[in-house]
């Protein structure tokens, strides 16, 4: 513990400090906990749907509410849980893994969190007021257009997009700049932990995918608010334009939920196999090729439209091809486990479930990638089963594993193994009981998004089984919450490196001090903590000479991570919070009147200007350590 650095880098105390906080660990934890809150809320909506479908001709939920339930469930799980929780993990862990004292642009990072929080609350508050969106999580036109969805429900969906995508894009910039410029000396790109590679690739995908859905939803709001005709075929617009723009984002989105899952896998497997990962270059290249290929798949969501057959064939081929890089990674992990000394702790259980569930989801993915079969299965429960197998197998199972794995770093305490195993088996069995029957329901013709079904369809038994599985999942999540809350106070003390892992986040205290590393490390290998150090060391092992009374961090070069310059980082401030409130007022206002952009833009401009404006005291402190290039 270094009291001077502590004083320099910590967020201010109290409620005010909460609003001013910019420490990446604070923001990362908040993002993860907030995303988990939305996961619970969206999970409750799913439970309601399962209860409604448990038996035929049930009357628990009516059609109108049911539409809002499935739309809000899907929207929240994708936009408020899956993407942000991964970004939260990146925000917390990437700086630690690269040996940095902070993320790049910590104030912008805090701003992104507030925008995300307000956007998410906006969606759920709307649902409580019966204006929850009801046109499906991809909000197809013309259903979501002015003619078929009067009122504000579709606007709530579209503006929630603006909030979350703005936030997601800013975090992506933060992650990219952190990875490229704030790595510890010696941490060349060729030594970058696979977790960081995966988060870097994810951030790049976000950069190029999210603008598409923002543009699409902005055009939708314009159609609804000021009578533009982007999606109106009667005036030269086109409904398929929506689907192209949405899925140009939406398919990469699946992969930027999935690739962080791969990041967790590539971190957990070597640790519990007690050996370095097998095939590091192959895994890096697979991540990058997955990212590229994921931008060439979007039309496979549109096989049931009138696009040309040649186009469909191309997208079928691309959809099959993307299985290759995933398979390469799976074989690398299997080899790592095969050659290592295997240690079956709770994080590993979740990792092993990935192999089972994701592979099943991937196989049904190959099925629906073929046009004739897709035409049969489109909009049936088969697709619901497929997407849950892919998303939960590819992202949520690894995420739970990651939670068990890094919880000691976040809190300083280990989670209970016994409850962890209970949670795992309830979740694994519950998941399969809930979603496996949906394959059969889909093959039997049960459509998605129906609020009930007649008795003589014969779908009652499988639906009841599925609901029983949902109950098990709920029980599993409850065990998880009990475990997390209990272990936070009463868990066994973890120490710096409870798992004996090799990457840098385990080289500092648990939880890490505000400055992360008293002396930032100098890196000489891919798994720095597994590297024997010569006594006395031949090369430097740590960085000294950074100012302690100013938030100073080391900036390095992009490829080789050679020291470039010292940089003074900004102090905590309330302006990101206030700016986020101003942005929220502007966004929500603008679903009612276009003038909200003009008048709401003024407070935003004022707030961000005051945010930027240098404070004399900080300027003087920075000047004291300034050195011209």
């Amino acid at each position: 513990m270094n009291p001077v650095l502590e004083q320099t880098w910590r967020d201010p105390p109290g409620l005010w400090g909460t609003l001013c906080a910019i420490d990446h660990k604070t923001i990362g934890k908040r993002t993860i906990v907030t995303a988990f809150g939305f996961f619970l809320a969206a999970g409750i909506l799913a439970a309601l749907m399962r209860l409604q479908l448990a038996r035929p001709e049930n009357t628990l939920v009516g059609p109108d509410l049911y539409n809002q339930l499935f739309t809000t469930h899907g929207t929240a799980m994708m936009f408020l849980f899956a993407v942000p929780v991964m970004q939260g993990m990146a925000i917390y862990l990437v700086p630690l893994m690269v040996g940095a004292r902070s993320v790049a642009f910590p104030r912008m990072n805090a701003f992104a969190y507030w925008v995300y929080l307000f956007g998410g609350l906006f969606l759920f508050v709307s649902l409580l007021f019966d204006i929850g969106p009801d046109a499906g999580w991809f909000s197809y036109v013309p259903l979501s257009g002015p003619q078929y969805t009067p009122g504000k429900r579709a606007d709530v969906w579209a503006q929630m997009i603006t909030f979350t995508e703005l936030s997601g894009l800013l975090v992506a910039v933060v992650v990219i700049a952190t990875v490229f410029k704030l790595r510890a000396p010696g941490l060349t790109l060729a030594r970058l932990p696979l977790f960081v590679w995966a988060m870097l690739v994810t951030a790049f995908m976000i950069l190029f995918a999210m603008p598409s859905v923002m543009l699409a939803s902005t055009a939708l709001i314009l159609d609804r608010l000021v009578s533009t005709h982007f999606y109106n075929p009667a005036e030269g617009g086109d409904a398929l334009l929506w689907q192209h723009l949405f899925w140009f984002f939406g398919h990469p989105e699946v992969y930027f939920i999935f690739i962080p899952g791969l990041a967790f896998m590539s971190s957990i497997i070597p640790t519990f196999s007690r050996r370095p990962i097998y095939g590091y270059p192959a895994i890096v290249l697979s991540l990058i090729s997955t990212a590229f290929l994921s931008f060439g798949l979007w039309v496979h969501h549109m096989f049931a439209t009138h696009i040309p057959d040649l186009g469909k064939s191309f997208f079928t081929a691309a959809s099959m091809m993307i299985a290759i890089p995933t398979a390469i990674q799976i074989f690398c992990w299997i080899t790592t486990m095969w050659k290592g000394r295997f240690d079956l702790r709770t994080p590993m259980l979740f990792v092993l479930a990935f192999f089972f569930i994701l592979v099943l989801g991937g196989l049904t993915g190959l099925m629906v990638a073929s046009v004739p079969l897709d035409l049969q299965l489109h909009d049936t429960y088969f697709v619901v089963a497929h997407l849950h197998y892919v998303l939960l197998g590819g992202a949520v199972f690894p995420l739970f594993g990651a939670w068990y794995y890094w919880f000691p770093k976040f809190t300083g305490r280990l989670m209970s193994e016994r409850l962890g195993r209970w949670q795992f088996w309830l979740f694994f069995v519950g998941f399969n009981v809930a979603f496996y029957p949906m394959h059969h329901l889909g093959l039997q013709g049960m459509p998605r998004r129906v609020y009930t079904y007649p008795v003589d369809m014969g779908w009652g038994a499988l639906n009841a089984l599925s609901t029983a599985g949902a109950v098990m999942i709920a029980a599993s999540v409850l065990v998880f919450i009990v475990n997390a809350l209990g272990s936070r106070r009463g868990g066994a003390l973890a120490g710096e490196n409870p798992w004996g892992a090799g990457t840098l986040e385990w080289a500092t205290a648990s939880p890490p001090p505000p400055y992360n590393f008293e002396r930032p490390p100098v890196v000489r290998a891919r798994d720095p903590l597994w590297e024997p150090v010569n006594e006395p060391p031949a090369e430097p092992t740590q960085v000294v000479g950074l100012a302690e009374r100013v938030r100073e961090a080391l900036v390095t070069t992009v490829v080789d991570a050679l020291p470039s310059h010292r940089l003074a980082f900004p102090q905590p401030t309330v302006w990101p919070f206030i700016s986020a409130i101003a942005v929220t007022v502007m966004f929500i206002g603008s679903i009612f009147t276009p003038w909200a952009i003009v008048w709401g833009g003024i407070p935003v401009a004022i707030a961000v200007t005051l945010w930027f404006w240098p404070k004399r005291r900080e300027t003087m402190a920075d000047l004291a350590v300034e050195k011209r290039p």
Partner: protein
Amino acid sequence: MNHRSLDVSGLPSYKFGHASLMWWGLMGLIAIEGMAFALSVGMYLYLWSQAQQWPLSAAPPDLRWGTLNVLILLASVYPNHWTKRVAEDGDEAKMGTGLVVCSLFGVALIGVRALEFTTLNCRWDSNAYGSIVWLLLGLHTTHVVTDVYDTVVLAVLFFTPGPREGRRHVDVSENAMYWYFVVWTWLPIYAVLYLMPRLTS
């Protein structure tokens, strides 16, 4: 464990261009916004591909103001280049002057842009062609307004007394970089809005 230390206290406390963190942040934003422009142009071309005739029942936008804006934007590259250079030399008096001149170029551009909106020969709510024309022009105008505002704020900062860190010179340099982005994106948008419909009709 014994340690050997790498002493970084002799390193400078800021750098320009791609060595700086700011440059990478800016490039991230440029990638996002560049993508938004590219997709908007894609929307324009897609809607065109779905249409029998283009523009839909309207004449293409009048050339006068849009072309004048091309000239103003191209001319504005020089003062921005000059300001960027004096920022990298650390000459604060010249930076102030440069920022004022750049701001004036920006204001002139916004003035002409306002006139440009009056000679588009279509309304946003007349048909899909009008909608996409207004969207493209609106998107670019948003960038112009934001960057001009940034430039004005920086100019005010440099006329406010008090010591300033050298890092602020990096801000000035990167502000010019962003302006280049605004300039270079206008050229393809101008070509799409003003020239393409004329070439094919």
